[in-house]
């Protein structure tokens, strides 16, 4: 990927921070829900997860990710894949947010 591609990925990651998990109250990037972001010819490919497969919030999170990534200049369209492999776990949370949430560091 080119330097400008890296920039675009960073911008998309930044834009995705407007999407929060309503229950945990933090943005999905810091919570570790976003597994992968790549850009190909203006198409952003985002792979993400949620805490529970059947949760009614999951589809809103997916739409929210598409909506926010679309607003980034240089992104022409967005393709979001929701996956539960691997399953999300709290060790994926960024350390700062983890301590804010009062999460156990181990186990």
């Amino acid at each position, binding site marked *: 990927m080119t330097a400008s591609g890296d920039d675009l990925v960073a911008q998309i990651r930044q834009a995705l921070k407007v999407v929060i998990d309503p229950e945990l*109250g933090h943005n999905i990037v810091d919570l570790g829900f976003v597994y992968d972001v790549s850009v190909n010819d203006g198409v952003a490919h985002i792979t993400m997860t949620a805490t529970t497969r059947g949760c009614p919030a*999951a589809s809103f999170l997916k739409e929210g990710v598409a909506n926010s990534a679309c607003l980034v200049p240089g992104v022409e369209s967005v393709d979001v894949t929701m996956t539960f492999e691997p399953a999300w776990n709290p060790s994926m949370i960024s350390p700062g947010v983890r301590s804010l949430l009062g999460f156990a560091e181990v*186990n």
Partner: protein
Amino acid sequence: MGSKPVIGTSLCKWTVSYFALAVVWLLLAEVLMVAGFGFPHDDIGGPDTLVIVHMVCIGWLSMVLCGALFQFVPVLVAKPLYAERWTLPALALLTLGLIVLLAGFLALGGHFDGPRWLLPVGAGLLMAGFTLVVANLGMTLWSGRPLPEPARFVAIGLACICVTAAFGGMFSLVLSGTAVGALWPDLLVSGVPIHAIAGLGGWLTFTAMGVSYRLLAMFMLAPDGDARLGRLARRGGAAALAVTFVGGVLALWKATGLNLVLLLAGAAALLSLAAYGRDVLGLYRIRKRRALELNTRMSVLALGSLVAVAILGAAFAVTGSLQSHAGALAFLVAVGWLSGLVLANLYKIVPFLTWLETYGPVMGRAPTPRVQDLVAKRRASKWFGLFFAGTWGATLLLLLDAALGFRIAVAVVTLATLGLAEEFVRARRLADVAEPLRLPAGAIVPHLLVSRN
């Protein structure tokens, strides 16, 4: 087998309507108790007490459970609800059926000169309503086979509401003095324990236990991937219920009395509760989220009521005073355990559903508040404290035969319920969400009694 599991299920439009009506029934029942209507001023099996019991068990608890299950069974099995269009007719049938049934009890108690058909017609309408609920949830579960453990609890709970309703229907024929009912003169004596165990134990408690496995794991972020989690509790409970139904029907047929059946069922139920307690404690120990939220802490208080019921029940059984304390124990089960658990979870579910409805559609386009921004924890904690203090006080006063003290304690419970109801309304109105996050562009304040989906 059905289609692929869905990602994200939609909001059930009428769930909040079920919740709202349910809270109204609870408040009505509490006001009647404060006014001295029914037990302990009246006979525990008398028509006036039956009015309150059915207001609480059908109007409040069953209504809230149905509304919640329409939302949660799809989450449990990751499949859409089989027929959302059946949920409103079911609500109408249950409400109308309950009103007619209560009118029948009031007529039976001599409060007005009503026709004899009120009880059977009310029971018939209720059975029709529950049939719609069971069919809808049953088909949803069916599409999600093989069922995860919590969903199996729900399936057993659904079978139990069928048993409860069938017995209730037969009672209505006996109590209204019909010719068919006259064929079963002893049905009320032996049938009432089965009706009550199937309703309070099987439908309400067992279903709540099953759902709580998933909810507690979700709220505490405790890994619940072990497929065996809940298995012993389910098997013990299923054995208790099966012994009650099969043994109960045999005892009815042979007219031998229910003592042995209830003893065996009680032992299996205690095993189930002990296993459930162990499981909940296990989830608590492995939780990733250290600080527990108010809804979880209040659920623990409700669970404390259930533990107290098990200990007191066993103690009274040993001392032979179970019969004379049955009213206090039933009160603690219905109000301390089930109502406490339901209110604690409504405190979470109402803001969560309101959040999804209001902010879900604008997510990604504008900053949104968190679910906890929709509630005022300190105010709600005060009301919950009052609710549990009042409930435990009322139970103690019932055990001490202090009828007036009981009414005063229930007045405290009523005040707390009103306070919590106001908190739920404020959450629906987004009244506690600070600006400028309250209404981002594109977001609309939800209706109080119905969700847009």
